[in-house]
């Protein structure tokens, strides 16, 4: 399956990864080689096979809904590029 540069750009935008024109070309080329390779999975008939999403055989463990830890707000914003009074500061979301 051939992936076009437009397609690469579309997916990169979805993933919020900006690619410049050089990167777009090389990523596209690499992607096509890899996709050609993974196409070999089509050799297998998996029509009656269940997918494996997780290799552990138990369901997600549950616990009582009660507060067991109270992380300090200062810790939460300690690494923030921009913060104010324990809030994360970002550019305007609604223009």
């Amino acid at each position, binding site marked *: 399956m051939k992936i076009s540069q437009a397609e690469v750009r579309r997916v990169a935008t979805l993933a*919020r990864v900006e690619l410049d024109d050089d990167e777009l070309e090389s990523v596209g080329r690499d992607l096509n080689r890899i996709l050609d390779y993974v196409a070999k999975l089509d050799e*297998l008939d998996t029509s009656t096979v269940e997918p*494996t999403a997780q290799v552990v055989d138990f369901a997600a463990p549950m616990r009582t809904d009660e507060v067991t830890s109270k992380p300090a707000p200062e810790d*939460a914003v300690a690494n923030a590029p921009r913060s104010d009074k324990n809030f*994360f500061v970002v550019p305007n979301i609604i223009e």
Partner: protein
Amino acid sequence: MSELTDELTDLGVTQASQRLAARDVSSEELTRAFLERTLALDQGTSQAIGAYLELSAESALDQARAADALLANGDPTAPLTGVPIALKDIFITRDMATTCASRILAGFKPRFDGTVVARLREAGAVITGKLNMDEFAMGSSTENSALGTTRNPWNHACVPGGSSGGSAAAVAARMVPGSFGTDTGGSIRQPAALCGVVGMKPTYGRVSRYGVIAFASSLDQVGPLANSVEDTALLFEAVAGHDPRDSTSIPQPAPDCRGSLHDGAKGLRVGVPGEYFGEGLDPEVEKSLRALLAALEREGASLVEVELPHTEYAVATYYIVATAEASSNLGRYDGVRYGLREGEDGGLTNMYGASRDAGFGAEVKRRIVLGSYALSAGYYDAYYLKAMKVRTLIRRDFDQAFENCDVLLTPTSPDTAFELGSRTDDPLKMYLSDVLTIPCNLAGLPGLSLPCGLDSKGLPIGAQLLAPPLAEPLLFRAARACEELVGFDQRPPEQDLAGGAGK
């Protein structure tokens, strides 16, 4: 360097722990010896090993002195009290820079320890610093690190393997007696093989992933590296066991792996999968593995030919599953709450794109785009769902093989350490370095690599053992039996340190 210092840095984890408990040597002396050796070998020359991203010498000495106080009081001591240990920079460590070898986490200093780190501290370990890796654990040579180069201690023109290259190199060069890494597609076992050390990946779910920066959540596992099987077992026991903060954590305590460690090879059924000895395997690697198999047989093990027919589909399966999961996991790096932020003047969406463009290296971007593509509308069934089904087939192969054998023995890597820069132009070629280690991650099995010889270039060859889920005691027993038979006692050639001058 004094003879005494060399003698101290020759100590493994178990030996060090015994000498410390006997008050034969202090943790401060021991830690200082390893730090001195690290300073001499790791930085400062063009051929330096470069295993560490951040060496925390002052903190290590403080920890060592605290350990000495505990030892002096005859306090009940935990098994790693006073033993220096280093960590791949993928482990969240309180107040220590944690970068995942990426620019996007430059300056990030966590305010908490992950579970493995907390358990190591409880066990009394002296944490010496953070080790180099491929960025976000994506790579097989540590060349994808955005923050530095790590060289193989056996040949400084060669890679140490990856993604836990720093963890393997530091142990091989005896800068530290033990280290921890992570393994998603072979990232502990392959560098262990290329650097001539022991490295182990537990059964998926045995060791907590809480506080381990996520690459592919259904594949990632934490594991130890050391210079002996016994040391590796001790390190594994110190961190394994249920953690309520990791919902994929198996609800069982750490198994006792040292009790049966010396039970030997007699009666062991060793499976040999033909698919792992096929085309593309370096003849010297094959020769070394065949010699080990013959030795096991002489010791009373029986060799069983087994088939794992879906082996050839493992790399393709992995590069869909792992990249898909990675594209999701790496979505959190957006410049909002931590890490690199750029382009905020252009608005929020621009900030996301600019931060991620500046912060992520080429391989990371490639995998995020590939993974997003595999999950996107219209392609999910053809790629991700298909890969999940093939994963089931791969697991079944192992289940069936283990009906006829106790462990599997294979080469860890199709060849030995390659030259820096020799595979960076060809991502697919790089991916195929992991062809022998990937299936184990897809199936969630425990696996271990140990050195079984050197090739004609003097580079280490690794033998891989795989065991059924939860069978770590058996895995370590088989590994110890192999280790005894191999008698690997070679060391990387020492740099000339006379007068303190490196090359």
